[in-house]
């Protein structure tokens, strides 16, 4: 008789980088590992946080800084969590309105998305706006504890600006961003795909830089689990990680791109046209109306060691929380963060050994972490 499957319920937000979970559930990778993976679509990260805390979800698609924020008690309904696997690298971009882009281009912004050059141009635009007493530029991110918030702030700060006083940063749901840009509520935003491509396709936005250029091969979403669930279900978690690693390899294969875009575009997943999903999956980005750019690693899914979390990743996110006044520095917190982003559970589930663990993080402006 066939062995019965262990059910695992996963919450996800309809974004391109839910691909690994979607492929694991839809392409048989979960079943192969004895898991019945049920995906539940959510409407906000707050819901993901609340529903994993009360046990509705066993695991969830999470912004990489969320398990840290929850474990350090920086948000409500905080419970100790782990990030045992990365679900994608890169995938975000910074988009500005076409009118802000015109000003930035006039100030010499690189058309290919170089973050140093576009940041400098932004600083010049802001200086001239200040001279004219023009209102502050308004930027959107999807969550205060997100890669988006930290990438946007890092890019702005690297240009010599203060993201807390030289611009205004607000939080908006990703699917609303492109409309907010079109109506002038926002001048720019940092968001995951396909919501940058959506604004470029609508002719209302221009991509000025992207995550892969700011911090190459950096984690964006992670698999989030409560420490309690991970400790109570070690075998199920290990099987799930193997399933997700297999699914990530499948997502990474170029021959599956069209099939993946089809899966993601369906009404119960992202519910958007496949052609809006494709550019980021293929690494063939339209930055502006007439500017195409090949960015092969724009958004990376890959199984194996590449999806292992590393303490250095957690440390970078925690550094940003401290830098922007969300968290305090302490030895206790640093130790907790290293534990949350430990690769051990993932590597042992996959039987991987001798994986280098201390690769330094190098940002676009040359700073190392």
């Amino acid at each position, binding site marked *: 008789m066939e062995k019965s499957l262990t059910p695992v319920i996963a919450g996800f937000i309809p974004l391109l980088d839910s691909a690994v979970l979607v492929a694991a559930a839809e392409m048989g990778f979960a079943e192969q590992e004895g898991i019945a993976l049920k995906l539940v679509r959510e409407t906000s990260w707050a819901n993901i946080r609340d529903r994993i805390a009360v046990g509705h979800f066993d695991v969830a698609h999470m912004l990489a800084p969320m398990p840290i924020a929850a474990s350090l008690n920086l*948000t409500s309904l905080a419970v100790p969590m782990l990030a045992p696997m990365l679900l994608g690298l890169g995938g975000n971009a910074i988009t500005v309105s076409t009118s802000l882009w015109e000003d930035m281009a006039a100030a010499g912004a690189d058309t290919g998305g170089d973050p140093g050059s576009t940041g400098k141009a932004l600083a010049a635009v802001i200086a001239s706006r200040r001279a004219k007493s023009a209102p502050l530029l308004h930027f959107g991110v999807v*969550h*205060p504890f997100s890669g988006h918030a930290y990438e946007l702030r890092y890019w702005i700060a690297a240009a010599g600006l203060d993201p807390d006083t030289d611009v205004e940063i607000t939080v908006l749901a990703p699917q609303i961003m492109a409309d907010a840009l079109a109506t002038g509520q926002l001048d720019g935003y940092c968001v995951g795909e396909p919501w940058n491509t959506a604004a470029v396709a609508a002719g209302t936005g221009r991509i000025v830089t992207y995550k892969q250029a700011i911090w190459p091969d950096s984690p964006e979403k992670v698999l989030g689990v409560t420490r309690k669930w991970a400790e109570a279900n070690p075998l199920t978690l290990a099987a799930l990680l193997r399933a997700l690693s297999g699914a990530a390899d499948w997502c990474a294969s170029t021959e599956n791109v069209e099939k993946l875009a089809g899966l993601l575009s369906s009404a119960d997943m992202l519910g958007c046209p496949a052609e809006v999903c494709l550019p980021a999956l293929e690494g063939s980005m339209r930055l502006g109306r007439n500017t195409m750019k090949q960015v092969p690693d724009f958004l990376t899914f890959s199984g194996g060691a590449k999806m292992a979390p590393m303490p250095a990743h957690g440390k970078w996110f925690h550094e940003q929380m401290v830098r922007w006044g969300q968290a305090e520095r302490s030895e206790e917190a640093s130790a907790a963060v290293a534990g949350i982003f430990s690769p051990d559970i993932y590597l042992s589930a996959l039987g991987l050994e001798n994986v280098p663990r201390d690769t330094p993080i190098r940002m676009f402006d040359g700073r190392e972490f």
Partner: protein
Amino acid sequence: MIRGLSILVIDDNKIRASIIEQGLRDAGHDRVILVHQMDGLVRQIAEINPDVIVIDLENPNRDQLEHMFQVSRAVRRPIAMFVDKSDSHSIEAAVDAGVSAYVVDGLKRERVKPILDMAISRFRAFSKLNEELEEARSELADRKTIDRAKGILMKSKGLSEQEAYDLLRRSAMNQSRKIIEVARSLVIASGLLED
């Protein structure tokens, strides 16, 4: 006398919002304000200056709202209802029911708990209402199918309506199936034969 709390209910679903409003008013809260859309919400919240905010979990703007509470100086700092972890039962009940609440820091728990309990019970009642509506719809559909099956039997075998129904019931009993299943098979089969 303690002044009544002002309660802001944010819910896209107007029917559910008014059900909650009614419940709160019945419980003696006369300062209840409903908001259905998020445009200009910061300004509205600053004007209303609510003590308690009740929001449905389907609302995609919860992240925006929570961020606003963190940074806005115009709004008195509401905090999530759920900071009090000792009350995990309430937390689960609220999330199960699909509702969340934020209260201004410093308010006594005893004053706020009945409001959340009310919201939870009204949310539950609403989803039960919806389920009943669904059931009623599918019952109606079932009845139509059985009527069609009866009609087919009456026409093809020259039976009265009662005889046709009895035949359906007997076949169902003999095959240990439900009447609706037999009726469905019959309607499908007769559709195939007609072509």
